[in-house]
């Protein structure tokens, strides 16, 4: 159903509440009170919202947006990049002359950034802050900001040193060492 693909969040939220209420029902009376008071109305609202979504998608499926596809694309490009954009049609067949990526690529960009985030967390968990942060900043600056290796290393170095200085010397706060790094340090004695 297009309602699902257009508004998956409603289903996600519904699923979350159903699961949590189910778990809560195994708790004694005093403990499950609040989760029920919160969860059951939430489930009802999610269902109502799904109905609303379905009605909305029926309406847009019926009516055609009167603007041309190019005008729609133009507006979305402008929104996404913050730059006013006009597309020129060389002939009747719409051809986008601005060399921007079509909308589909925006999603894969987000996916890439997610990978960075996941890698950062994984790195910190296994190798600790001290080892991961400088490498992460360096690689991100190089691959995403297209910095030269030298510049990336410089910024990364300054940033990491400042951070580690504040935590290790000023605050005397031990940042997570990383599971693997811990084993290695133990091994080295």
């Amino acid at each position, binding site marked *: 159903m297009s309602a699902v693909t257009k508004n998956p969040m409603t289903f996600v*939220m519904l699923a979350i509440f159903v699961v949590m209420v189910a778990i809560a029902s195994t708790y004694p009376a005093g403990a499950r009170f*609040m989760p029920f008071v919160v969860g059951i109305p939430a489930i009802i609202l999610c269902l109502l919202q799904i109905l609303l979504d379905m009605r909305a998608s029926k309406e847009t499926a019926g009516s055609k947006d009167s603007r041309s596809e190019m005008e729609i694309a133009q507006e979305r490009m402008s929104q996404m990049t913050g730059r006013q954009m006009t597309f020129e049609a060389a002939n009747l067949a719409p051809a986008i002359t601005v060399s921007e990526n079509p909308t589909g690529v925006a999603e894969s*960009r987000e996916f890439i950034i997610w990978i960075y985030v996941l890698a950062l967390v994984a790195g910190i968990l296994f190798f600790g802050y001290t080892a991961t942060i400088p490498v992460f900043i360096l690689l991100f600056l190089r691959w995403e900001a*297209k910095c030269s290796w030298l510049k990336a290393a410089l910024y990364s170095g300054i940033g990491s040193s400042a951070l580690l200085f504040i935590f290790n010397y000023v605050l005397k*706060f031990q940042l997570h060492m990383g599971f693997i790094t811990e084993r290695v340090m133990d091994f080295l004695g």
Partner: protein
Amino acid sequence: MIEVMFGSLAGLLTNGHTMGLMLLAVMIGLVVGATPGIGGRLSIALAIPFIYGMDMTQGAVFLLTMHAVNGTSGQISSIMFGVPGDGDDAATTVDGYPMAKKGEAGRALGASITASGVGGIIGAVVFAVMIPVLEPVVLAFSPAEFFLLAVLGITFIAFLAGKGQIFKGIIVGLFGMMLSTVGMDPQTGTARFSGDYLFLWDGISTVTAVLAVFAIPEMIALGARGGSIAMMSSQNVTVSYRQLFQGVLEVPRHWWLVIRTSIIGACIGMIPGLGGSAAAWLCYGHAVQTSKTPERFGHGAVEGVIAPETASNAKEGGSLLPTLFFGIPGSSGMAVMMGAFLILGIQPGPAMMTSNLPLVWTLIWALVVGNLIAVTFLLFITRWVALLTFVNVSMLVPFILTLVMVGVYSSEGQWENLIVLLAIAAIGWGLQRYDWPRAPFVIGLVLGKIAEESLHKALGLWGMSFFWRPLSLVLIALICATIAYAVYANVKGKTVMPAGAGSGAGS
């Protein structure tokens, strides 16, 4: 009385050593406060070894200033990068960050910093004024009233959802409340939703949740989009002192709002037990509710920046009251402060009023002067700091992500929070991607806990009849009025515009 008041001020300003300490405290407090996750508690705990030998007044001034200023610098990352330092700052992010995206970071910061300073000063004034009536006011608020105040705050969620999005707003708010039930239940000792995971027994860390819902999705959107935070062509870079000054002037322009939110903030601070970000969010909701054009909120309304900032800073002054005069800390930060006061030889209690009034006044003045110093300093450096919003995001994102990761860990010292961060961030990203409001989540998370604990206590004390207490009835009437107005406003369309309409990447 007047001589004591101004005598203390003179004493404060003319003592070079004290002023020097205050300056130092302001610097430390600002730096510590600017980093997400590191709270006031740690900075005071670290300062304690140094205060053992200090003179009572100087030590107290030092600590108080450091603590008070701590809350002021968190707004920098909230406004510029959409990365709140804690629950309080999240309220500032909702309107502050959209202002930065419009290229108005300078104005936003000017307004928020000034608002913070003014709020802190008014908070100190409220503190001074309320001393005689403190006792009856604080004692009037029982768990019953806390519960209803929490519910009142929660109903503000209805205002923060866009037109036609009221269900989504409430669902997100309920999600926040649901997450607040994670952990050891106060009534039966059941470990809800946490099983054997001891790190969850105290609940989901607010810092982690807030960063997960706001900061991470913003970074992902930014990283994907490219360009700079301020979505405008770089020819328009005019972060001059003029823009900053414009922001500063917003505060006197909205003077009535400033006074109201400061007083509300101070009063909330005064009542032990209603701490946390309740003040910031209640006042944000209040600003939305009392505005003639609420549809601007969520998209860069400067009132949305001013209200929470005045409130959270005024709260600091307010929370000093019960700490000094009752020996009962007004907030968790004050609890640590009280320990430090004891070390310095200050004995909190009603005797403070009679035997140590000069010290009390010195502390009040320290709050005022400290705030002024902090504001001046921050305004000065903002001009350069705001330029970062015009830098290419790919340069900024790795550093901001690093700060977020560090903040999540440093708030509780548990690596498991990083995983919690990812899990909640996934949901937060989904909410942002599909234009669901996110502000109600924090309200639900923070107030949900207070609501449940207070309800449980109130029922234990009075059973269901607690609703009939006079103050309770007043609050119930307020809640009903708020809900009625919310429904009316939503139906009429006089509400916050849904995220995504008009300014591209949501709020």
